[in-house]
């Protein structure tokens, strides 16, 4: 599976509930490996969700977000079948993006 992003976006009445799980180590930079060296910080800094080109949710994350991060939110104004564009960028500048259909 190429993308690191998993999303479930389900329309419930007017509200679209969005759950996301992203495959990412989210290393804080405070943890040592078994040889005692610090594992360098490697975490997602910004995660954005866009619907019809408009941001509906922006997450700015620090070093305290769990590995394989998960976030759930809900927004109004979308219809079944609309597209939700999800993209993230981490502190190393790596990025990933994917679009999902609202169920």
């Amino acid at each position, binding site marked *: *599976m190429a993308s690191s992003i*998993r999303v479930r976006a389900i329309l419930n009445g007017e509200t679209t509930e969005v*759950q*996301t*799980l992203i*495959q990412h180590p989210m290393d804080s930079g405070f943890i040592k490996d078994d040889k005692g060296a610090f594992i360098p910080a490697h975490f997602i800094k910004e995660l954005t969700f866009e619907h019809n080109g408009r941001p509906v949710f922006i997450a700015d994350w620090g070093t305290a977000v*769990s*590995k394989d991060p*998960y976030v759930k939110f809900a927004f109004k104004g979308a219809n079944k079948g609309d597209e939700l564009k999800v993209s993230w960028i981490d502190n190393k500048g790596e990025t990933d993006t994917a679009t999902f259909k609202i169920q």
Partner: protein
Amino acid sequence: MRFWLITLAVLALSVAHPAHAADGIDPAADARAFRNYFVEKFPNVKLDDFANGPYSLNEDMRRQWEEKEQFPPYEFSLETGKELFAKPFANGKHYADCFPEQGIGVRQNYPRFDEKTGQVITLELALNLCRETNGEKAISYTGDDMAALTAYMAFTSRGKPFDIKIPNDPRALEAYENGKRYFYTRRGQLNFSCATCHVQNPGERLRAEVLAPALGILNALPIYRSEWGGMGTTSRRFVSCNSQVRGVPLEPQAEEYRDLEYFLSYVSNGLPISGPGSRP
């Protein structure tokens, strides 16, 4: 460090020892007694819920688990497992060709006793044997690929009750007994057996962790542990438990571990497969 060493030792001794029994090997009677012990110890836990380990005994932890289950951390391993399972070997064969029902919905029958080789075949061993018979190298029993493969196979059996068979073969009975002996034998510098924690103290806390009851303890494997930040196979779980009591672990899928899995799965017959699971 000293403090909990003493409290744990006192805890272990304070519990009265269950009575003796005749020396004949009677798995069916053991399984009944095993189940009754836990059902009486935790009367308000539904039988099937024992397959959810500590979450059947602690409400605060159960809520955290249910939140994780909405989008579980083992999701990626599950998808990788599905891909790996479908990938053909160099000779064109697949894992599916090595298993009954193409490997779908069969996890609850493992470990099974192979009368040809007289050995207990666990799911993990069966996967590697399948690779070797098809000219591939065996993979690590504690690695992510094995966890992904067993996660996928467990998932296809979700909800199906454990159905472990002990054929009327003295070697099978001996393997079962060997597993039972290992389960109850104290080991490691802490001088604990599996039973010290999982029979005498389930529901108690080891600092943040709530000890799971031994009944249904393997049903959720392989598990994604927050502690490991990743997946863990049965082999990884046994090895890490040995290390926790300061015993030197045996090599993964050693005969003792396979027999232990045979015993523990048999006495959990009837409880549903809930793997892959997520645990603290």
